[in-house]
């Protein structure tokens, strides 16, 4: 196993994860994971099935109890409930999409940015209409023509994009994308890679979790590899391609020591 000390730090760390550990019953799903995502950086997270990728995302966004530190731009988030972490700027997508089936595409995104709770309630009754123009993230992802449609009227690829737009909208700063390309064909997957790069140029930090090695290795600045819940490698795509431990984890060979 390569030493972890040579892990290059993010140039301008925005999301910092230190010593994150997740236990389900007696099973350790994530073991002492350190990970950083910088401003304008696309970071990949790969690993075989059951390596603990989704459990890491769940823990960082507050959907699974965990130990360890999560900081966004220096601010501790690890004791906050999920919706507070989102409001602080840490957004995520879901593997199954999980769009709001009864809301139009525009509303799926608007619900993430609107005034909330009592203030929204009062504004609804007394104030002006809540109908505003569609969020800029929809235009950026090329969903401008779909704003009035319902999610189940869209192709799977476009549904995934709506999920990404929902995570990008408002004041989010770091976006965790959990298998956004699953079920996309090769062309769609490539187009999606372009979009991820655009997100980074807008200043978002992106953590991309995906099975599609092509996608991850072609768009990411840095890649982390998980196996059995631990980080077994971290580096540039080229370093990862030639890392013996990674190949072993995927193809089941014995690692060359």
């Amino acid at each position, binding site marked *: 196993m390569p030493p972890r000390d040579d892990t290059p730090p993010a140039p301008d760390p925005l999301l910092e994860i230190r010593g994150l550990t997740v236990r389900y019953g007696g099973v350790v799903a994530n073991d002492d994971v350190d990970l950083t995502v910088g401003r304008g950086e696309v970071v990949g997270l790969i690993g075989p*099935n*059951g390596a603990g990728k989704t459990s890491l995302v769940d823990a960082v966004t507050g959907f699974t109890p965990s130990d360890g530190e999560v900081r966004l731009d220096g601010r501790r988030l690890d004791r906050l409930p999920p919706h507070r972490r989102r409001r602080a700027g840490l957004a995520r997508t879901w593997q199954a999409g999980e769009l709001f089936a009864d809301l139009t595409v525009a509303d799926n995104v608007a619900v993430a940015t609107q005034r909330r709770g009592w203030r929204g309630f009062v504004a609804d009754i007394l104030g002006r209409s809540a109908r505003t123009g569609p969020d800029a993230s929809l235009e950026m992802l090329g969903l401008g023509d779909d704003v009035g449609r319902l999610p189940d009227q869209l192709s*799977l690829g476009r549904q995934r994009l709506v999920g990404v737009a929902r995570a990008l909208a408002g004041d989010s700063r770091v976006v965790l994308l959990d298998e956004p390309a*699953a*079920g996309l*064909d090769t062309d769609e997957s490539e187009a999606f890679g372009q979009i991820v790069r655009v997100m980074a140029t807008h200043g978002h930090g992106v953590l991309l979790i995906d*099975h599609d090695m092509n996608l991850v290795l072609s768009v990411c600045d840095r890649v982390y590899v998980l196996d059995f819940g631990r980080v077994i490698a971290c580096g540039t795509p080229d370093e990862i391609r030639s890392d013996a431990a990674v190949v072993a984890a*995927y*193809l*089941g060979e014995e690692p060359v020591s």
Partner: protein
Amino acid sequence: MSALELKGVTAGYGHAAAVRDLDLAVSAGEVVALLGPNGAGKTTVLRTAVGLLAPSAGEVRAFGRPLPRKVEKNSREGVILVPDSRAIFHQLTVRENLSLARRHRARDLDAVLDRLPRLAPLVERRVGLLSGGEQQMLALAKALLARPRVLLVDELSLGLAPLAVQELLPIVRTLADESWVAVVLVEQHVDLALSVADRAVVLHHGRVALSGSAADLRADREAVRQAYFGGHAPEDALV
């Protein structure tokens, strides 16, 4: 006649076709390894083959007849799936799990425990308390008790230490050799899978990217690597 035959099968969930226009035939006594990166459609093939998922195009036949519509009927006739969730019941004891699976006499149970001696001392224990390897062993024991004629195994090695896998895979081989069972093995541990299989098929994005005898694929590792990491295998590598 093939024990299991998929003809031009397209299947998936909702809008997405996870498997497109797939042909696959497995004969009795043959072990076929189904390989490919995650999301390639391997699990979808198995779910379609056992009737959990209806193909949107094409046909599945078992022993020359179209698949019955009810999964439970299918499995009573010997088409057995061991899914990656293992289809075992965590709230029940090992004995209770096995008793649900047996088709015939209670005596069968002893025969299976002979084959999996590590399970014998655990029969009264609740499955939730077993280790991953022991649970996988139980899943396999359950499948054996059902007297399979077609056995579909999904990710036997998932989450297991290599040693445990090396203990379980040979059992599958023996089943094909001695009991003339047709086996489809979905596996991410490529080398282990190729070591027990007669034939292998590599899927990528729901289509066959590479297929050939296990021996050929073992010899041409670069083609396998390409099929995994490169997406498309070179045309001449297709067998």
